[in-house]
């Protein structure tokens, strides 16, 4: 049975439909990338999959006995109050709360899991620091470690690379790939980084502003018209060659900074808009 089945799925805010008629399935062990322009409703879909928002139409069916407590989640934006006192360790450990039955206190296993994830994300030396004193990228890694602690069957990441530098981004993608490949955990990731999305994912869901543009394997996506028009027709042939280069080489080139000049106009504007949003937010924060 599929882990998640979506049929005719739509979401609306105040009667305005923002996600239109999605049909797709996620099998156990899949690595699904969700792509689309800003405002296509990717984050809304993620919230729907987490049952934080109910569909306006259609249905989501969960299989394999999937429950919320087996899901790890990295939100696109986390509004933590500026004066909230919490250490990195406290935040990361809080991801373990759903794991197996009700324990009032953290078990030894929880602590080990937290340690392991903090190490993987290179934040072990920050663990006694206050969360709110960290930089944006450090905070992102803390929340990722928390998401990993919560993950048992499914990991949902909404633009996990935002605010991370290329080196950390690369190790993040590799970590997620390991989690997917070695531990058999299903991954659903919203991503702006098309090159990385295609290199790691097994499936792609491409959301348009008024309909679903593509759902299928990453291989088929690379040949699809949805991909080509998204990347800008001019560069498409070149990107196609680039993406089809031997895997090893591609992975070395995959740092987002290196891939940027290759990318078409559409994604570049999207990225610029996104970065601006980020810097605006950072500016507003300080």
């Amino acid at each position, binding site marked *: 049975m599929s882990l998640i089945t979506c049929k005719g799925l739509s979401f609306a805010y105040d009667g305005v439909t923002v996600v239109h008629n999605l049909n797709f399935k996620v099998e156990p062990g899949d690595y699904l990338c969700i792509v689309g322009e800003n405002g296509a409703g990717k984050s809304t879909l993620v*919230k729907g999959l*987490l*049952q*934080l928002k109910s569909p306006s139409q259609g249905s989501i069916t969960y299989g394999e006995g999937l*429950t*919320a*407590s*087996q*899901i*790890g*989640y990295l*939100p696109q934006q*986390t509004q*933590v*109050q500026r*004066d*909230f*006192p*919490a*250490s990195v360790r*406290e*935040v990361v*450990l*809080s*991801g373990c*709360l*759903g794991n197996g039955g009700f324990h*009032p*206190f*953290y078990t030894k296993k929880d602590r080990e899991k937290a340690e392991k994830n903090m190490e993987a994300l290179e934040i072990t030396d920050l663990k*006694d*620091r*206050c969360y709110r*004193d960290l930089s944006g990228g450090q905070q992102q890694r803390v929340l990722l470690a*928390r998401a990993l602690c*919560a993950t048992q069957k499914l990991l*949902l990441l909404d633009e996990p690379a935002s605010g991370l530098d290329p080196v950390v981004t690369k190790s993040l993608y590799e970590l997620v790939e390991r989690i997917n490949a070695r531990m058999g955990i299903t991954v659903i990731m919203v991503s702006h980084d098309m090159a990385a999305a295609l290199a790691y994912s097994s499936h792609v869901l491409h959301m348009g502003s008024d309909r679903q543009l593509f759902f299928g394997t990453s291989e088929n996506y690379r040949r699809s018209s949805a991909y080509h028009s998204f990347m800008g027709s001019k560069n498409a042939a070149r990107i196609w060659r680039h993406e089809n280069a031997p895997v090893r080489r591609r992975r070395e080139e995959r740092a987002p900074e290196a891939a940027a000049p290759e990318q078409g106009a559409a994604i570049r504007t999207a990225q610029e808009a996104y970065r601006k949003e980020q810097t605006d937010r950072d500016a507003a924060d300080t």
Partner: protein
Amino acid sequence: MQLILEMFSYPFMVRAILVGILIALCAALLGVTLVLKRYSMIGDGLSHVGFGALAIASALNLAPLRVAIPVVVLAAFGLLRLGETSKIKGDAAIALISSGALAIGVTVISMTTGMNTDVYNYLFGSILSMSREDVILTTAAAAVVLGLFAVFYHRIFAVTFDETFARATGTRTGFYNSLIAVLTALVIVIGMRMMGSLLISSLIVFPAMSAMRLCRTYRSVILHAAVISVSCLVVGLTISYLYATPTGASIVLCNLAVFLVYLILERITRPSSR
């Protein structure tokens, strides 16, 4: 010194101190949660509802706590629901409810007993107001609050820090929000007799605010707030006994002094902060 020793020879003072310590402890623990959840105003609203309930209880000659506890718990649920779903702004709703309850309380009192010392005590608190039954009920309620808080400590943290994440990953946030509301209602009611309904919410807010000046982790804020709260209570009670000042006000003044000191310390230790 002599006077302080003498203070402990009065059973009502010993009772007041023991019960007071329990109340201060509960108030500090929940206070951190309420302040961080931006629920401080709910505490204030509930204390006025508590006053209304006490007034009605005394008009009907019922045991005050037995009436006040259920009424305030219900009001806590109501306020929480309002904050989540209503079209009325949460803070406006609280203002409506708290002034409404105060008006009802005052009207009931003026129609029955009139403005006497009882009413004064309801508003400003008194150490003498604790009956034997009050002491037992208060101790039981405090034990419930402390026990539940300890058992759900990590979940309360998770729900306070990032409710969306907690809900997405299978924590029943609705349950924990209700739990926080019920515990707050209990603390308000049991603290009201001693602190007065006008001042009880400051017992909840001050220790948390002071601790947050200096502490950077959740656990240290909780522990620090508990220590501040209990110390201020003991000092405040002693002052109240020695100088016959209103109990609640003395305790609040101690808390205010601590807060100001911490504020200055914060400025000194991190001058560049923000």
